[in-house]
C-alpha cells in the first residue's frame, strides 16, 4: 500500500524534469488548454451540454484512431472527428431529450469503431493508449503551434459572440425574442467545443476531457452567480488541474489524466461544500 502511494505521489527528480524542453512544452500546452477550457466551461454547464462534450471527445478519439490506422496525423484525425460530432450535435435535436439520445447513439458507434481501429493498428502501444488516457509526450513544438492557433481562434470567436452566446445559453426564450440568432449560435458553439476537445484529447485523453471542460464550470457555478467571476474561477480551476496534474505526473511517469481528474474533482467537491455552507443563508 505504502509502495503504491510512494509511486503515485513522488516529487523525486521533478525539479530536474521541469528543465526538460518537452516538459516545458507540455506545461505551455496545459496552460493554453486550461485557459480556453475554463472560459468555455461555464457556458457548457449553462447549456446543459456535458454529455455532448463527452460525445465529442469520444468522436475525437475515433478520428484519432482512424488517423493512426491510415497513417496521418493524429491531431488532424481528432479535429476532424470532433468537429464532425460537434456539427451533428449542434444541428440535430435542440430539445434536450432528442439531443441526449442522438449523442448516445453516435457516441456508442464512434467508441466501438475507435476501439476496433485501435486493435487493428500494429504500431506502438503508447500511441494507442495516448488517445484514451492522454500523454504529455504527445506535445511537440509543431503541436504547440497548432494548439496556440486553435486557442487563439476559439478565444477570438468568443470575444465576438460572447454576449449573445451568454444570453442564448442562460435565457434562451427571451434571447430569441430579442433577436439573438440562437439557431446559428448552437452549431457555432458546438464547433468551439469540438476544437477545444480535439486539442484536449491528446493531452488529457478522450476519457476525461470532461474533467477540464465541464468540472471547472460546474464547480464555479456552486459558489458564484456572477458570470465574470464564474469564468475567472473556472479558468483558475482548469489551470490548477492541468498544470498541477502535469507536474505531479512527472516523477511517477504515469499518465496525467488521473491527476488532472482528481484535482478537478477536489475543486468541485470543495465548491459544493462552500456553496452549501453559504446556502444556509438565503440570498435575496
Amino acid at each position, binding site marked *: 500500500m505504502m509502495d503504491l502511494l510512494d509511486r503515485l505521489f513522488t516529487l523525486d527528480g521533478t525539479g530536474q524534469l521541469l528543465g526538460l524542453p518537452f516538459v516545458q512544452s507540455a506545461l505551455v500546452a496545459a496552460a493554453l488548454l486550461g485557459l480556453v477550457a475554463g472560459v468555455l466551461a461555464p457556458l457548457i454547464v449553462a447549456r446543459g451540454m456535458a454529455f455532448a462534450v463527452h460525445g465529442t471527445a469520444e468522436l475525437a478519439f475515433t478520428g484519432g484512431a482512424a488517423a493512426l490506422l491510415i497513417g496521418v496525423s493524429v491531431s488532424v484525425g481528432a479535429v476532424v472527428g470532433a468537429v464532425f460530432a460537434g456539427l451533428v450535435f449542434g444541428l440535430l435535436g435542440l430539445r434536450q431529450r432528442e439531443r441526449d439520445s442522438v449523442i448516445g447513439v453516435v457516441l456508442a458507434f464512434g467508441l466501438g469503431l475507435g476501439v476496433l481501429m485501435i486493435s487493428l493498428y500494429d504500431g506502438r502501444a503508447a500511441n494507442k493508449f495516448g488517445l484514451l488516457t492522454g500523454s504529455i509526450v504527445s506535445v511537440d513544438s509543431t503541436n504547440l503551434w497548432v494548439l496556440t492557433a486553435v486557442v487563439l481562434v476559439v478565444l477570438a470567436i468568443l470575444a465576438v459572440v*460572447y*454576449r449573445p452566446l451568454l444570453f442564448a445559453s442562460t*435565457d434562451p426564450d427571451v434571447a430569441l*425574442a*430579442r*433577436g439573438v440568432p440562437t439557431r446559428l449560435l448552437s452549431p457555432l458553439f458546438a464547433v468551439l467545443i469540438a476544437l477545444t476537445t480535439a486539442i484536449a484529447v491528446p493531452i488529457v485523453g478522450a476519457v476525461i476531457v470532461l474533467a477540464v471542460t465541464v468540472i471547472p464550470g460546474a464547480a464555479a457555478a456552486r459558489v458564484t*452567480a*456572477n458570470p465574470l467571476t464564474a469564468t475567472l474561477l473556472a479558468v483558475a480551476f482548469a489551470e490548477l488541474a492541468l498544470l498541477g496534474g502535469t507536474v505531479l505526473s512527472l516523477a511517477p511517469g504515469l499518465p496525467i489524466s488521473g491527476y488532472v481528474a482528481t484535482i478537478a474533482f477536489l475543486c468541485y467537491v470543495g465548491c459544493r461544500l462552500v456553496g452549501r455552507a453559504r446556502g444556509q443563508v438565503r440570498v435575496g
Partner: protein
Amino acid sequence: MTTVAPRGAREETATAVTLRGASLRFGERTLWEGLDLDVSPGEFLAILGPNGSGKTTLLRVLLGLQPLHSGSVLVDGTPPARGSRAIGYIPQQKALPEDLTLRASDLVGLGLDGHRLGIGLRHRAERREKVRAALESVGATRYASAPVGRLSGGEQQRLRVAQALVGDPSVLLCDEPLLSLDLAHQRVVTELVEQRRRTAGTAVLFVTHEINPVLPLVDRVLYLVNGRFRIGTPDEVMTSGALSELYRTEVDVLRVRNRLVVVGAEAAH
C-alpha cells in the same frame, strides 16, 4: 381612453402596432386571416383565445421571428425586425436552474444589450445606471446581486418586467406573464405593466387565457378562435352573443362581482 405621446415617437407614426389584411397559415391550416388592427400608444390590448389559436404566433410576427402569409405589419412605424429596440418582451414564468450563473442585474442587463456582439466592455457606466434604474422601478434593488435561480417566481417575474423595460420600448409584448403566479404576484406584475403604460405611453399587447387579472386595465380585446376573431372593448367582445358566434356553439358569459366567467368555451375546441 387617454393616450400619452410615447418618447421618441415620430410625427407620422400615430400607431404603435399596425396590421393590415394580415393572415398566417401553416400548411393547410389558417391561424387567422384578414386581420386589421391598430394599437395606439398607451393602449392595453388583451389577446385571448384557446390554445393553438395563434396568440403567441402573433407575438412572434411582431418580434420579426415569423413572417406573415399575406398582408402587412408595422411596429412603431417600421416592419418588424429581430432585436428591435421598439419592443420589450415578457415571457411566462419558468423555473430557472438554481445554479444558473446569472445575477438579477445580469438578467436585466442582457435585456438591454445581450443581443449585441462583443463582450460589452464599452459604455459600462451607462449600462450599469440603466440596469440600476430598471431594477429600482420594479422594486428589485434589494436582490440585484442575488442568483436568479434562487429567487421566487414572483421575484423572477418582477425581473422579467425590468428586463423588458430597460431598453425603453414603445411596445410591450407579454406572453402569459401571469401564468403560475399566485394572486398577489399577479397583481404586482400587472401593476408594474400598468405603471409603465401610464408613465411612458407604452402600448401593451397582453396574451393571456385569463382576462380577469387585467380586466380593469384592458382597453380592447382581440379574441382569436379557430381562424375567426373579434376585436372590440371588453363590453363588446366578452358577451354571450359575440363568443357564441366565435366558438360556433352556445357560450355564456357571466359577470360575477366584476369578474367574467366564460362557460362553454372549454368544450368547444
